[in-house]
């Protein structure tokens, strides 16, 4: 019933109208013909009519003031939120102290043992190298802070996610209720979660952890539910036929059968928690993200990179290890006794190393072992930006490109959108969304866009929308081209993979300065930052989609003598259509996720408002901008969402 389409009369229609798209558009046109004159007569204005806006400034400001004034006296804070906050601080502190007590040697040994156990020798070596690199970059303590925060946030996310996932996996009704909520939460930009949490918990670690939990729990919940629902029906039937009780069925069959999805959920939760833990540095999360953020103040790309590399390393290691753990389902893994003995050895070895480290008086990373990467990186970036910025013969410098892009693409797009009457914009969205999706998705998209008008941020929303559209277009062009190249050349893909990893996990703050140095301040660098962020996922999904095209179809095309270009155009691209559509959807969602980053480089509009709200503690501006970004996200997601939803976000 979720895919119900509009009731369509079976009466004899002219030929064109049998096509569903034409029929939908005709219906839409009919509806518009009635509604538009009405709307125009009532609220005739080019931009969103004043009469239809709700000014939230007053109530929001009062709410913010009330919370600040009552945070130390009201029972809601004293007896409920205060305990949560304290519990978070207590847990993070406990983990942090444990990590510090273990010392760098102990932590590295324990992490290596864990990786070995879960993912084998190669990844264990990688893990050890990554941790040592964190130390060598002089980032040991911030790394431990981030790890402590992550550990608590991931545990909480997993707990929340599994509970929600069990509920949705076992009850069809709850699934229907939860699924759209979880789906929507996954497309929301991370920044949207920060302000409400800060409002309640204030700047600091508790707010950061809770924002992270809210951000990272949905994939766990979705995949848990998916795993439970996707269990082999015959196995479950077999379990029933042996007379299992509901509890036995859940514990001995459904949960073990969902192991792969559960681990995939854990993997995604960890990755999202890491990215959020970095972003949350703007609300006082501390750790590596904070170092990156602080390096920005002195316009020090090298220092930012020194803190960014450990984040990338952590991300890659955590991703590979949890992914490998998920893939071992069904592999022989010795007997139970062997496991326990192995675990005992590993724990023993880690403890021994930690104790040895302490006895040697070296729990902190020795200062003399650090490598200063900041200076050479700064030189390199300086050289690059100096030479590319302007005056490059023939093609012009990056500054010229940025100027031209702004004048010829961004300006017309923005002015065009803002120049259209408001109802025309809504109509346009409906006309795009309905043929691609169902009337429900179209309605959601239209309502979401209308909500930005109601919130009173119609103009900046359209400004942001124009930047997003431009960025998506650039991302798709570059992404599809690179993706096709990667799908056709194994060596190219192998070279590309680490680059994609780095760009996907590198905190966006790091490339903020180079982007400004290359493209100046304004909307063009905002678009560039968005493209850099969204490109890896698009490339990856495209390449994967092309590679997964049925080999039989390709073989038959080859046997008919198709040239490589023909194969691509006539077989691979059409067959990879679902993957390409998914890439579009992901591109849109990811581009929107860094709108706030765009605000930091002069993108203005909603991104700037959100940053402004955070920086000034101005709830009215920040929350409204955040809500508008969310609405845009919903709208774009629905517009670009074909039939089936993805099960994975990003990589």
């Amino acid at each position, binding site marked *: 019933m979720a895919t119900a389409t509009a009731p369509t009369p079976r009466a004899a229609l002219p030929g064109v109208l049998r096509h569903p798209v034409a029929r939908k558009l005709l219906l839409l046109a009919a509806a518009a013909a009635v509604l538009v004159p009405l709307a125009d007569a009532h609220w005739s204005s080019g931009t969103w009519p004043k009469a239809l806006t709700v000014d939230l400034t007053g109530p929001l400001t009062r709410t913010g003031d009330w919370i600040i004034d009552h945070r130390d006296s009201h029972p809601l804070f004293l007896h409920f939120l205060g305990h949560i*906050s304290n519990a978070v601080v207590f847990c993070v502190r406990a983990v942090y102290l444990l990590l510090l007590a273990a010392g760098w040697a102990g932590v590295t040994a324990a992490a290596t043992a864990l990786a070995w156990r879960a993912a084998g020798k190669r990844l264990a070596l990688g893990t050890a190298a990554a941790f040592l690199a964190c130390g060598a970059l002089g980032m040991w303590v911030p790394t431990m802070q981030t790890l402590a925060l992550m550990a608590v946030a991931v545990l909480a996310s997993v707990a929340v996610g599994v509970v929600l996932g069990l509920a949705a996996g076992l009850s069809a009704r709850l699934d229907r209720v939860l699924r759209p909520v979880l789906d929507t939460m996954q497309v929301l930009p991370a920044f949207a979660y920060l302000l409400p949490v800060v409002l309640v918990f204030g700047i600091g670690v508790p707010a950061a952890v809770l924002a992270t939990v809210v951000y990272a729990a949905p994939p766990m919940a979705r995949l848990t539910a998916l795993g439970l629902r996707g269990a082999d029906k015959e196995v479950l039937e077999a379990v029933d036929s042996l007379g299992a009780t509901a509890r036995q069925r859940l514990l001995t069959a459904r949960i073990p059968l969902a192991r792969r999805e559960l681990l995939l959920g854990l993997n995604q939760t960890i990755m999202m928690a890491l990215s959020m833990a970095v972003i949350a540095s703007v609300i006082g999360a*501390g750790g590596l993200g904070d170092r990156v953020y602080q390096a920005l*103040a*002195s316009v020090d790309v090298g220092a930012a990179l020194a803190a960014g590399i450990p984040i990338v390393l952590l991300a890659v290691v955590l991703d590979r290890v949890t992914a490998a753990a998920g893939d071992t389902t069904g592999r022989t893994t010795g007997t139970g006794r062997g496991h326990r003995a192995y675990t005992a050895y590993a724990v023993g070895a880690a403890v021994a190393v930690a104790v040895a480290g302490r006895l040697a008086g070296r729990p902190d990373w020795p200062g003399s072992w650090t490598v200063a990467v900041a200076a050479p990186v700064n030189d390199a970036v300086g050289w690059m930006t100096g030479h590319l910025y302007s005056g490059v013969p023939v093609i012009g410098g990056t500054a010229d490109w940025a100027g031209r892009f702004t004048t010829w693409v961004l300006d017309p797009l923005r002015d065009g959108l803002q120049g259209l009457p408001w109802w025309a914009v809504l109509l346009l969205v409906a006309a795009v969304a309905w043929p691609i999706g169902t009337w429900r998705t179209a309605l959601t998209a239209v309502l979401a866009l209308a909500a930005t008008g109601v919130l009173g941020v119609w103009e900046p929303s359209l400004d942001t929308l124009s930047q997003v559209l431009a960025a998506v277009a650039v991302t798709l062009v570059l992404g599809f081209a690179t993706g096709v190249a990667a799908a056709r050349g194994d060596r190219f893909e192998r070279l590309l993979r680490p680059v994609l990893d780095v760009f996907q996990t590198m905190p966006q703050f790091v490339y903020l300065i180079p982007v400004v140095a290359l493209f100046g301040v304004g909307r063009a660098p905002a678009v560039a930052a968005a493209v850099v962020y969204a490109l890896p996922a698009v490339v990856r999904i495209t390449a994967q989609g092309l590679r997964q095209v049925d080999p039989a179809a390709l073989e038959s095309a080859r046997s008919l003598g198709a040239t490589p270009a023909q194969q691509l155009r006539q077989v691979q691209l059409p067959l990879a259509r679902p993957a390409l559509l998914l890439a579009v959807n992901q591109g849109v969602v990811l581009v929107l996720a860094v709108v706030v980053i765009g605000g930091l480089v002069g*993108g203005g509009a909603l991104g*700037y408002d959100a940053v402004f709200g955070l920086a*000034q503690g101005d709830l009215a501006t920040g929350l409204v901008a955040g809500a508008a970004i969310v609405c845009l996200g919903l709208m774009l997601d629905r517009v670009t969402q074909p039939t089936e939803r993805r099960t994975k976000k990003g990589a």
Partner: protein
Amino acid sequence: MRLRTTAVAGTLLLLTGCGAADMTRQASPFAHARGARTVTLSVQSWVGAQANVAVAQYLLEHELGYRVDTVQIDEVPAWDALSQGRVDAILEDWGHPDQEKRYVDDKKTIARGGALGVTGHIGWYVPTYLVKQHPDITDWKNLNAYASLFRTAESGGKGQLMDGSPSYVTNDKALVDNLKLDYQVVFAGSEAAQITQIRQFAKEKKPFLTYWYAPQWLFEKVPMTEVKLPAHKEGCDADPAKVACAYPRTPLQKYLNADFSKQGGEAAAFLKKFAWTTEDQNEVSLMIADQKLTPQEAAKKWADGHASTWKAWLP
């Protein structure tokens, strides 16, 4: 509504069955890590503030034996964090009358910590190389004549006035409107972006007009001259929408968490006495921002050369 929240909270209290937990009296989980005496300082995003904190941190650690944690927070949220005790001190505040009234006068959770000794000033600046070509550009009345010079892709047909971080105090939009200037305010969105852009312009000797503030180390790298706006008079900026005068000169202030101020011992006493000159601050800032020393290296270098200055701060 009030009743209902109270009722809800009451139920939750019964459920949790434990006492009150005031999250506004809560330290960072990363503080006190080694059982040492610890101070948490708020660092704002500009380098001058980093210089203050770097020197304070260096002296607290090496002269008084404290462990210092720093947290980067924007200005207004920093007041809230200071009030909650999540940071112990802000060393450089550019004037937030609303926050001061709320936290210092009404709630009494924040105490004044005296002046930093540096006077801050916000204004509009053009690069000095531009002033050499157009000497009359430093009067706002002539700005309209030069608008075309400052045009960029981002500002469209108007001249570009570049503003910085959203956390800074700015009246520029109102100023442009009220002074009827043919300019477009473009927000760089962060100080990092703004500085990067200024340096790119300076490298090519391009004209630009920017919101900027002193003391700031960037003046040493890119000499800039202030554009004279209508003179500042007491109260002329009372209504943010009608401002048509220059920014004031602000003696920068220090603020301490009220409890820390009373019980902070040597650290609190030291931070109250901490005061230096604009030149001192700029020296450290430049080492951090331009020579890319770490804040701690810069602080050490400065401290080695200015022992007489900081000896007076020690309790």
